[in-house]
């Protein structure tokens, strides 16, 4: 073990964790240890069980079976609040600070120091200063959170964790929105924490970081633990192979309906929407399913929103069937024949309070009017019934409120509502997120059928496997640019490597300290 104080005493021992959700076994018999004062990387593709595992550790989910020994005692935390109190804290990707309070107020939120029943500013300042000195922080205590940069906000969250004497800090992609320098600063802090015998479970996609700061690596795949390795004794090649597992063979190879000799349905030329879309050009052809994959934060979702007019581009041009279009709002995009199935169907895709058929007819409601603004509910009903059947939507009735449907059926309602507008191009952003296996494969089927009947589909997903499964051609985004183009039948690991970044020299063992 190079450097550090990481001994062999374990702070957390996880034994045989299992957790299932309706239709999915998210964790299968996972066991792992976290040592005192080590930085332990948790790696795996999207959906491999990383976040389920951490949620089971802190009690956000209740595991179906398995035991956990924390600091020598068998423990089961009922909530993240309880585990936080006991010394396990999580730094989530989303910030969880209160923007209008100051740094110090946030650090002590929920654990304010009192004297005679009143807030004691003096005591808190004393403790704040002590905390800063001990861990080498240098943040102005009276600054409000909204005045800080993202990196400083991350540090405040870490301070908050340390103020409760955390022994374990779980960090979920902590560098996701940090600049290189900010990330370097964070790594320095992480090393300091390790010196102070604090253990860190470090979740990331970025392999460079893993080799820079972690001591050991645990890899999950499909809810199972694949392996735990010493960072110093492995290389990127080995890790990628372990993450991907057996290479997926495109068993359901389907014929392509793309007509590459025709004019593209949509072309984007040097489209920019900072910070996430830096410079993207692409062509989508009639009948083509164009897959786009890349890590979370690589610009996929923002690209989808820009192509749908949900956000305006800063520069560049978009052409629909050769004609230049200005997409200032979704109305413009819909008129141009573009539809978007958004990443978050509950907040952006559906009006959950409305009945199924009303959701289906919402974008194309103009087609069901008799006279000025007057709706023919009967015709709406008949038409949506047709799509209801065609997409095999399972709901008690067309009059059921959409909120009572399962995730997969909700997603089909979103697809139905856009098919009704008869678009030339359907953009699907993470269309299978959070839905069960059966509904997933039904959605793949729908995508292929759409291509067969001449529609074009832009299929955006961070799951390489499913992109491979439905796409005729695949683009990889990284840092807001397209960094690779692949045909069908490409090996999964090849694409995964491109998403993870750059060329990977084998047996890269240098560990920067």
């Amino acid at each position, binding site marked *: 073990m190079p450097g550090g104080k990481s001994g062999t005493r374990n702070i957390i021992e996880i034994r045989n964790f299992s957790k299932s959700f309706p239709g999915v076994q998210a964790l299968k018999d996972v066991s792992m240890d976290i040592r005192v004062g080590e930085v332990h990387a948790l790696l795996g593709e999207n959906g491999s069980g990383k976040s389920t595992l951490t949620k089971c550790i802190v009690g956000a989910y209740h595991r179906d079976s398995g035991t956990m020994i924390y600091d020598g005692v068998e423990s089961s935390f009922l909530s993240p609040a309880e585990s936080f109190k006991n010394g396990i804290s999580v730094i989530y990707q989303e910030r969880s600070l209160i923007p209008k309070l100051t740094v110090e107020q946030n650090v002590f939120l929920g654990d304010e120091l009192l004297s005679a029943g009143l807030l004691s500013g003096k005591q808190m300042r004393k403790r704040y200063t002590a905390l800063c000195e001990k861990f080498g922080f240098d943040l102005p205590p009276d600054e409000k959170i909204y005045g800080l940069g993202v990196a400083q906000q991350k540090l405040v969250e870490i301070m908050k964790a340390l103020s409760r004497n955390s022994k374990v800090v779980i960090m979920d992609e902590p560098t996701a929105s940090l600049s290189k320098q900010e990330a370097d600063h964070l790594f320095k802090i992480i090393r300091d924490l390790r010196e102070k015998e604090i253990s860190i479970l470090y979740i990331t996609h970025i392999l460079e970081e893993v080799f820079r700061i972690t001591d050991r690596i645990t890899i999950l795949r499909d809810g199972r633990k694949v392996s735990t390795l010493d960072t110093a004794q492995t290389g990127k090649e080995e890790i990628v192979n372990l993450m991907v597992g057996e290479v997926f063979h495109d068993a359901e190879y389907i014929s392509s309906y793309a007509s590459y000799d025709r004019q593209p349905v949509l072309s984007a030329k040097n489209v920019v929407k900072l910070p996430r879309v830096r410079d993207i050009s692409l062509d989508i052809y009639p009948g083509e399913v164009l897959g786009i994959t890349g890590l979370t934060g690589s610009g996929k979702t923002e690209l989808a929103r820009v192509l749908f007019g949900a956000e305006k581009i800063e520069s560049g041009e978009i052409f629909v069937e050769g004609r230049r279009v200005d997409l200032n709002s979704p*109305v413009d995009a819909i008129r141009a024949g573009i539809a978007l199935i958004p990443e978050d169907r509950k907040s952006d*895709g*559906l009006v959950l*309070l*409305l009945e199924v058929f*009303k959701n289906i007819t*919402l974008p194309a409601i103009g087609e069901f009017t008799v006279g000025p*603004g007057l*709706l023919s509910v009967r015709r709406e009903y008949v038409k949506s019934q047709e799509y209801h059947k065609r997409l095999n939507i399972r709901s008690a009735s067309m009059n059921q409120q959409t909120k*009572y449907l399962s995730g997969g059926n909700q997603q089909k309602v979103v697809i139905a509502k856009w098919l009704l507008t008869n678009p030339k191009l359907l953009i699907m952003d993470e269309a299978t997120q959070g839905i069960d296996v059966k509904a997933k494969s039904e959605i793949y089927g729908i995508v292929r059928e759409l291509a067969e009947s001449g529609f074009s589909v832009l299929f955006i997903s961070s799951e390489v496997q499913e992109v491979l499964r439905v796409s005729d051609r695949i683009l990889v985004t990284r840092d807001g640019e397209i960094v690779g183009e692949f045909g069908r039948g490409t090996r999964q690991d090849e694409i995964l490597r491109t998403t993870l970044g750059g060329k990977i020299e084998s047996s890269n063992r240098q560990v920067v300290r």
Partner: protein
Amino acid sequence: MSNPGASSKITGFLGKYKILIAFLVLIIVISFMTPNFLSWRNIINVFRQSSIIGIMAIGATFVIIGGGFDISVGSLLALTAAMVVGLQSYMHWFPAMLVVLLVGAAFGVANGFLTSKIHIPPIIATLGTMTIIRGIVYMYTGGYPLYVDSEGFAFIGNGYVGPVPFPIILLLALVALGQFILVRTKFGRYSCAIGGNKEAARLSGVKVDFYIIMTFVMGGVMAAMSGVVYASRLLSVTPLAGQGYELDAIASAVIGGTSVSGGEGSVLRTLIGALLLTMITNAFNLIGIDLYVQYVFKGLVILAAVGFDSFYKARS
């Protein structure tokens, strides 16, 4: 899968009809306590007393369904009532009525614009316009009551068609129209969609800002209509007219099950809510309970109606 469906059906049924059930229970209880309660005269009385708030509440229902709130409608009632009286010095009552309906629509546009385009929270935006409109009422009336004497105009508030007072017929007709607009027109559907999920509606190509403004226009026009009925009923208007009416209108809508967070509601049930509120006052008067106690009881009814809803929503 079938489980949540079944339970949703039951809670859906209770949710939809609980107001009707409460209404019927209250009628039965009160009719045992006061023999006069179910007399034709008293029933007609309750309906007529509900007509002004009821008409205003139709508009409030649209505004709340669309995700907004409008507390300026009480002031707007005063302004439109004063104007429809004042304008009759220059013109026939009918064009005067059309003018004040337009005034109501104009303030609706203003309220809608302030909330949707300037992004002022609806309660604050309409707090501002409420104060402005009340000021205009004082300027318009000079602070004195206005009187009118026109038989044709008086018919709106005091006339009868057969045995039924005209304001009741007007109320029922407007409720029917409002309900029709809500369930059978694009505007009504969009109001529900925007109140239910503004972003999803926007991404579905709905011109969100325009339709939010339209819900406020509906609120303004209905307030103006209630102002016309008010002026006609009393044949006079003081500058203080309509104070607190906006709260009764909002209360009618929420007692009738309109979701305070938007997206759900029904004009028919708002009517029942308005009748229920009036009935409580009416019954208390018949029984002879102090006015002060009535306020407390009305407040409890509002809290019970909204509390029931909010509590179960938060739990599910």
